[in-house]
């Protein structure tokens, strides 16, 4: 009996001691993980990524050869963005007056164009390449009407202004003329596009209200005219030399039409003076293109335009071999820049870069610092275009 009661006492004490540590009443709170907002749709459709943010009129985006850097013009000066680190570096002084920028073949020096006053010509500069942050630039040429980089190198093919004609020259990286072409083009050059092997160039010119297209054989130094617009019609931007022929946008001159209407035209690469350009019907009868840019591999065309007069502008990708037109953006309220340099491909052809901002006349107060706002200002957007058909 004595032993049983002793056992019972021990059990009760043990239970009291054992339960003593179970009475902790202070709750330990663990905050729920913050819910990420869906940032994939920035006004141009899902998957489109803003590459820049904040104020500033941006334009002329240009990828570095490794697709890891992006250069662009902002309010007249050149900025380079490291896409991995997200850092920005200014490459010219703020009062430089840059109009466009292009990355050199070797990825170190940038070619910057600066309009020359009221003239339609511009000067060409090269930025420094030592990465020291030096704002110094080197003037490499003046009086240029249009220029394009020769594939596979850092040379430029430039069209220079003459009295009534344009002269072509091939420039080395430092601006030295390595070849001056003797055949001149009537009118002022407005755009240059080189064939993939760099042996030929497609050049648009303007003369007395008419636009012409010329193919220049850079090896033989010969020129042939392949198209001439009717009076009042203009060639918009630069024509594009593709693997499937020569493409250009032409239509009623903006000055003569309240709502200019343009068409996408195609010519075979071996077109002559009597070859008639065909309207590219693959994009649709009512489609109004406003800008085109050939892909790096030459088999696709990025087309900025509207399905019809009242549709919003969107980016489309035209497969030049099959004729398939794929929609790359679903724009509702964004104004997309249509300047010739404002549409570009990534070096690998996986994405197209454009510049856009939201169209709004109303004042909107946002709970965000100005440098984090994207839609209200012209910013650079990357549109993936690899799997559009899926």
């Amino acid at each position, binding site marked *: 009996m004595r*032993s049983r009661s002793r*056992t019972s006492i*021990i*059990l009760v004490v*043990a*239970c009291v*001691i*054992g339960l*003593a*540590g*179970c009475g*902790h009443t*202070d709750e*330990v*709170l*663990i*905050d729920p993980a913050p819910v990420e907002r869906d940032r994939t749709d920035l006004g141009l459709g899902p998957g489109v990524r803003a590459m820049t943010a*904040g*104020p*500033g*009129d941006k*334009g002329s985006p240009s990828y570095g050869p490794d697709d890891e850097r992006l250069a662009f*013009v*902002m*309010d*007249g*000066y050149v900025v380079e963005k490291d896409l991995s680190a997200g850092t920005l570096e200014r490459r010219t002084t*703020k*009062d*430089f*007056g*840059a*109009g466009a920028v292009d990355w050199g073949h070797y990825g170190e020096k940038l070619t910057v164009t*600066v*309009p020359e006053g009221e003239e339609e010509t511009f000067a060409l500069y090269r930025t420094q390449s030592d990465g020291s942050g030096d704002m110094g630039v080197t003037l490499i040429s003046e009086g240029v009407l249009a220029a394009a980089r020769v594939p596979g190198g850092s040379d430029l093919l430039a069209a220079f202004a003459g009295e009534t004609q344009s002269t072509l020259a091939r420039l080395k990286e430092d601006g030295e003329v390595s070849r001056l072409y003797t055949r001149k083009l009537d009118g002022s050059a407005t755009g240059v596009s080189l064939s993939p092997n760099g042996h030929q160039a497609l050049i648009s010119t303007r003369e007395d209200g008419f636009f012409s297209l010329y193919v220049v054989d850079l090896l033989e130094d010969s020129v042939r005219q392949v198209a001439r617009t009717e009076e009042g019609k203009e060639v918009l931007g630069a024509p594009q030399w593709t693997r499937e022929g020569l493409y250009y946008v032409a239509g009623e001159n903006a000055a003569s039409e309240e709502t200019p209407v343009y068409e996408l035209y195609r010519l075979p690469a071996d077109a002559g003076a009597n070859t008639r350009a065909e309207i590219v019907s693959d994009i649709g009868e009512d489609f109004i293109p406003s800008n085109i840019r050939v892909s790096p591999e030459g088999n696709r065309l990025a087309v900025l335009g509207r399905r019809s007069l009242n549709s919003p502008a969107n980016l489309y990708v035209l497969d030049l071999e099959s004729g398939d037109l794929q929609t790359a953006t679903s724009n509702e309220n964004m104004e997309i*820049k249509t*300047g010739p340099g404002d549409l570009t491909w990534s070096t690998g052809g996986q994405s197209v870069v454009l510049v856009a901002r939201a169209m709004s*006349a*109303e*004042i*909107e*107060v*946002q*709970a*965000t*610092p*100005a440098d984090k*706002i994207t839609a*209200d*200002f*012209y910013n650079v957007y990357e549109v993936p275009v690899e799997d559009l058909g899926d």
Partner: protein
Amino acid sequence: MRDAISWFAAAAVAFFVTAGAFLLLANLGGSREEQPLSRPRPTESGPLLRMELREDQLENLEHAPDQRLEVDLSNTGAEPISSVNATVKVASENTAVPETRFYRAVVDKLKADETKTVGFEVDLSSFEYPTDAGLDPAAGPPRTILEVRATTPRGASAIKTAVLPP
């Protein structure tokens, strides 16, 4: 039978005594001011300081000096806020413009559930641009950016940004 019960009772006692000793030690060793696992919550953060920048007054502002800008600051928390530092930054949309105009005001005390209006006389006259070269005429004239920030000594903050048409 009795031996088996004794062994079982002894084992149970040993287990509970050991467990109890460890729990007591754990409680004694712990700090009185226990840190919760949740993220620290500043007493004046997030919704406790609220700022209002009314859109209707923004529509009446002109591109001229001495424009009256009023900002409502509210303490939506349960504790008073000792002071609020409010700043207004007026800048051009054009990032090449070197000039930026700053204005500052301090609200001394904001009781719980109290709202105070702080006024600024801001210069919204046009900025001078370093160059017109290279600017896209299609973009139109640059707009003016108003950025208002409010902060408290204990780290709470609020920000509002508005883009005024040219």
